[in-house]
């Protein structure tokens, strides 16, 4: 099926700023769906609130645009309600890890078969450029006019520690890798977390004098390296890209079926 058949054309033009990385993530995501050959009726996209979360409006799947931070909780209900469905949850960094941080770690702990794509632009885009828990020390934002003293999370480490059975990271510069990783994440049975470093030129770029969207993407190329590369050993400041965790673990809906089986037998 051509990519354009996966989108709701009538709802375009989209609301993202020109140069925003969120559109690249959408493109990769659709190519992943195309490669997997999934039918549109078996996909549910659930999102919270934020620029990133607006993806749901543009795709021709079952789409649920919910509350800031709560997408994974809604998604858990949808998945447990109908486990055959493929559930994809695009999330902002604030959405996933500030207001939604608790749902994030508990969804990982349960290892329910949901794919979370954390679109990390290190800023609250939708509300006008306030700092997020992913902004990092020293960054400027509309609520950190001097500099930010909050330290950031490492999404990969956090997801891994919380029990996610598939954890990966890449950037909007590495579009092919992104498509490939999303494909694998969707195929994976269990909770998958894909962190995508994505540019918000409008706020993060401007506030921190990084330049245009292109300049920001160039930085993704320069500041990241494949996981376990020699470059990383030489320069520990580089951010690793790739799949960090991919393991088979009991999946929550399957586990629940065991409870049903036991209950139906009358213990």
């Amino acid at each position, binding site marked *: 099926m051509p990519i354009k058949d996966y989108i709701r054309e009538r*709802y375009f033009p989209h609301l993202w700023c020109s140069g925003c990385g969120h559109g690249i993530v959408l493109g990769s995501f659709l190519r992943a769906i195309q490669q997997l050959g999934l039918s*549109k*009726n*078996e996909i*549910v996209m*659930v999102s919270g609130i934020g620029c990133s979360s607006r993806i*749901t*409006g543009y795709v*021709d*799947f*079952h*789409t*649920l*645009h*919910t*509350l800031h931070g*709560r997408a994974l*909780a*809604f*998604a*858990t*209900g*949808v*998945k*447990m*309600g*109908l486990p*055959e*469905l493929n559930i994809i949850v695009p999330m902002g960094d604030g959405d996933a890890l500030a207001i939604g941080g*608790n*749902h994030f770690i*508990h969804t990982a702990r349960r290892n329910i078969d949901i794919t979370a794509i954390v679109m990390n632009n290190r800023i609250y885009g939708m509300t006008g450029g306030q700092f997020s828990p992913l902004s990092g020390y020293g960054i400027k934002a509309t609520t950190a006019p001097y500099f930010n003293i909050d330290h950031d999370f490492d999404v990969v480490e956090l997801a891994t520690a919380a029990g996610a059975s598939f954890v990966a990271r890449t950037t909007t510069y590495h579009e092919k890798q992104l498509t490939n990783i999303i494909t694998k994440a969707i195929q994976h049975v269990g909770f998958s977390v894909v962190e995508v470093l994505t540019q918000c030129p409008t706020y993060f770029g401007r506030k921190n004098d990084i330049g245009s969207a292109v300049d920001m993407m160039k930085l993704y190329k320069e500041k990241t390296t494949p996981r376990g590369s020699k470059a990383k050993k030489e320069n520990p400041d580089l951010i690793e890209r790739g799949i960090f965790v991919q393991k088979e673990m009991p999946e929550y809906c399957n586990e*629940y079926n065991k*409870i*049903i089986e*036991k*209950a*139906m037998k*009358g213990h």
Partner: protein
Amino acid sequence: MMNENVKFFQGNETCAEAALYAGLDFFAGYPITPSSEIAEHLSHRLPQIGGKFLQMEDEIASICAIIGASLTGHKVMTATSGPGFSLMQEALGYAIMTEIPCVIVNVQRGGPSTGLPTHASQGDVCQTQWGTHGDHAIIALTASNHQDVFAMTVDAFNLAETYRTPVILLFDEVVGHMRERLILPKKGEVPLVKRLRTSVEGGVDYHPYLPREDGRLPMSDFGGVHRYNVTGLFHDMWGFPSDNPRIVQDLLHQLVDKINNNVHQIARLKEYYLEDATTILISYGSSARSALHVVENHRLRGDRLGLLELQTLWPFPYGLIREKCVNAKYIVVVEMNMGQILREVKMAVDQPEKVFLANRIDGVFITPMDIRNLLGLIQGKGV
């Protein structure tokens, strides 16, 4: 011979069983006194029928999960008490806005804050109507005994489906924890409202938010042939975000009118000795038990006392109350808060000055004696 359908149940257990009777097959919750027995009971019972029970990380996650599950075609419920109900308010508004059927039980404790976890209170009445932000309407039912807990719980599911809206079951600690006799209705004895699904076939345009002529909004399950968008933003008939003033206004009216224009269909109340009553007690939930006791005792002495027991708290049946109270000299609202239903009754009747409050707010169950003392005062007999 022992009748299998006669049970000696706790109120919370009754609510859980009634929910199952109504077709509940998905529950998500977070433990909190005095509601936890509902979750415990359902964790045991739901998997026996192939249903799902989830213990989530908090009440916010719980209500969000049931809303998600409702979209896949399940009948869903969560249960909590004050602190958890406060956490649920944002998602409650989401269910209102997106018109997703669900049932939320609040077994009230004393508040504000952690308050009195194991004591009697009815302090969440106004929160139930106005806890979530924005203009909206809500349906809230309550009950004073287990037979009615059962009936109201089944009703809650039926109303949620009929009006495509969250319905609140506002019980209290006394009813929730008390044990008493319950006769379980037989299968088929109480009518159940099934989910109204669209008859529009796949490939033909389905408008998820275009009400039928009768105001009802047929649903299509996620995973089915119709793909559409659900959002808490104001939205058009396709479910797509819109800030078109016409669309915004029409949707808000749809959300409020579908409930407020059907007050008579939704209103449930019980009348005791109202025909000739000169003093009418108005009460609900466990308080109504004491109120009924007072009325029955006074009737033995020939006093013209009556009781109006409210089972629908919201939408408040102003018209019905006015009608029933038109001949009363005194109206006494009996409740365990600082006058939350009193306010509504005063608004309903022609002479608000004849409405009095008999309440307790100290966590102690209001007794017939408490009510009698006040009656003595307002009728000028001294205590």
